[in-house]
């Protein structure tokens, strides 16, 4: 693959930093062999939960995966009920957390530039802000943080990055 340009920036510019509040998280720990069935269960959420805000997944061990699904808290009862029913059938476990907030920032070619996630993690560590989940893909960094944390966390990020003034 050709490298067509190289970056030089003393302080990283971002397109925007935004946050969403009042989210719930469903953490599913499920057997890998239940993946196909999980797909069907997720499709069933379309009518009742409507949209997801963030989804991440990784391996717990060679037989178990975990998925973190963030969505609007007002849909929690419905989403939880459906996923618990599914989990019971599939020997999966569901853990639910509410009152979460999600910050997302994105910037030019973030997936191709070093050190950007470190700027975020270091800043949050210095200010004791707990990152519940982070998902960095494409040019986006998503950060799930506890209730009432997004505003101070965003303020910290605004000091670390250059953001277009009016966004």
């Amino acid at each position, binding site marked *: 693959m050709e490298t*067509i*340009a*190289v*970056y*030089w*920036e003393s302080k990283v*510019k*971002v*397109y*925007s930093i935004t946050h969403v509040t009042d989210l719930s998280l469903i953490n599913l720990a499920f057997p890998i062999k239940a993946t196909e069935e999980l797909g069907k269960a997720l499709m069933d959420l379309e009518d009742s939960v409507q949209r997801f805000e963030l989804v991440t997944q990784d391996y717990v061990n060679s037989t178990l995966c975990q998925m973190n699904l963030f969505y609007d808290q007002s849909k929690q009862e419905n989403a939880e009920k459906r996923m618990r029913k599914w989990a019971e059938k599939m020997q999966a476990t569901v853990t639910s957390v509410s009152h979460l907030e999600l910050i997302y920032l*994105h*910037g*030019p*070619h973030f997936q191709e530039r070093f050190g950007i996630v470190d700027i975020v993690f270091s800043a949050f560590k210095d200010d004791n802000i707990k990152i519940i989940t982070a998902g960095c893909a*494409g*040019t*986006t960094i998503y950060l799930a943080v506890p209730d009432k944390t997004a505003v101070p966390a965003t303020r910290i990020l605004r000091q670390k990055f250059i953001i*277009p*003034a*009016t*966004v």
Partner: protein
Amino acid sequence: MSNDQLILVVDDDTDLVEMVSMKLESENFRVAKAYDGVEAMDKIKAERPALIILDVMMPRKDGYTLCDELKTSDDYKDIVVVLLTAVTEAISSTNYTHMGGKTTLADDFVTKPIDLDKLMEIVKDNL
């Protein structure tokens, strides 16, 4: 003012296309999306947008080439083209010449990282 004109957003950064589209939709514009110059030309022929927000660095056909094709075509020269030029201060070397937008045939330009509110002003001013 009714903003129901069609705007085509073209960029290989899919997250940026989504952000700009959401902003345009919130201002009641209709939005079409394309992720490189070739796909954009198909959308232009099929949907004839009033304005195109066009990235420069893209696979298959870059923004400068597409812009020149449109502006030298009798069929498409009236479509407003707003170029999203690269982060000129941040990129020190590149295969692309950073002409700053105005030296191309484009109607206007915005430098990245874009200020969405400024972009909306430019879109409205050019329609």
